[in-house]
């Protein structure tokens, strides 16, 4: 007889967090497996820097471990809470960057340097990341949460602590700006001009 691959996958995030709050170490392992990839992906999109994104992911998870014993069940989704923490941590880091090193913000690469037909998907993804970094911070948050993390607008509103209409506006403006940036690089990215 074979056991299910992971019977604990059916346990909700919240139940795992409460279990960890009661001292269950295995619950922390399950939460780490579930949450860290998501948190790291979002922080990477926001910061455009792998090492900084890892630091943010670790800090966000540490805050989750600390809040576990006081977690109020039914008030917020664990994922929403984490997205909000990551959003705030990224905002802090981006502000510090602005003050410390104005040249530290990654610039979109010079188009002439990489002009060639048939670029790989990875390079298009890099171009998307560069374009995301060029967006104003709030538009970037909204676009990443909506179109990459696949969240619904009310949940994004919760994470960003703004109204749903503001989310819609930020998402629409952000997407238009992204399309404009990428449109200027279509040829470079190997898209057909015809």
């Amino acid at each position, binding site marked *: 007889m074979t056991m299910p691959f992971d019977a604990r996958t059916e346990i909700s995030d919240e139940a795992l967090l409460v279990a960890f709050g009661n001292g269950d170490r295995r619950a922390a392992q399950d939460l780490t497996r579930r949450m860290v990839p998501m948190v790291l992906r979002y922080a990477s999109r926001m910061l455009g820097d792998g090492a900084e994104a890892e630091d943010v992911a670790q800090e966000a998870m540490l805050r989750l471990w600390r809040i576990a014993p006081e977690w109020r069940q039914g008030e917020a989704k664990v994922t929403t809470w984490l997205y909000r923490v990551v959003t705030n941590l990224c905002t802090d880091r981006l502000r510090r960057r602005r003050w410390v090193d104005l040249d530290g913000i990654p610039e979109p690469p010079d188009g002439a340097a990489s002009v060639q037909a048939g670029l790989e998907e990875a390079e298009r993804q890099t171009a998307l990341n560069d374009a995301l970094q060029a967006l104003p911070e709030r538009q970037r948050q909204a676009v990443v949460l909506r179109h990459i993390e696949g969240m619904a607008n009310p949940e994004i509103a919760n994470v960003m602590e703004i109204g749903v209409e503001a989310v819609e506006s930020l998402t629409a403006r952000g997407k238009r700006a992204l*399309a404009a940036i990428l449109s200027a690089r279509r040829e470079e990215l190997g898209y057909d001009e015809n």
Partner: protein
Amino acid sequence: MTRIDRSEQELEELLQSAAKAGPDPSDALLARVMADADAVLAERSAESAMPVGSVPTSASGGWLNRLLGGVGGWPAVAGLATATIAGVWIGYAQPASLGGVAGGLLAGETAYDLGDLLPDYDSVLAGG
């Protein structure tokens, strides 16, 4: 199809593939996260393992601190302790100078009656 439409469609496709992609967390990161979880668990168990008597102790510490505050703190307590010890030492050691004074007045076989201790009014009556 206009260039803008194409760009938007391409952007949609890019965003969709971005949703599937993303950096995989390194083993080192996962280990760091779990080490934090262990540290938090250890902190919590250390807090809950504190002896039951520790709370009353801290409460009596508060009582002691209030008392100390009332008499002027530790320097005042040091002064009180010095005075107490000096008193005890004088009581037991009976320095010679005190013995001389007390001996002149109280020593000997002389017994005193109540009348000896009363003032003498004879001179007043005689003058009357």
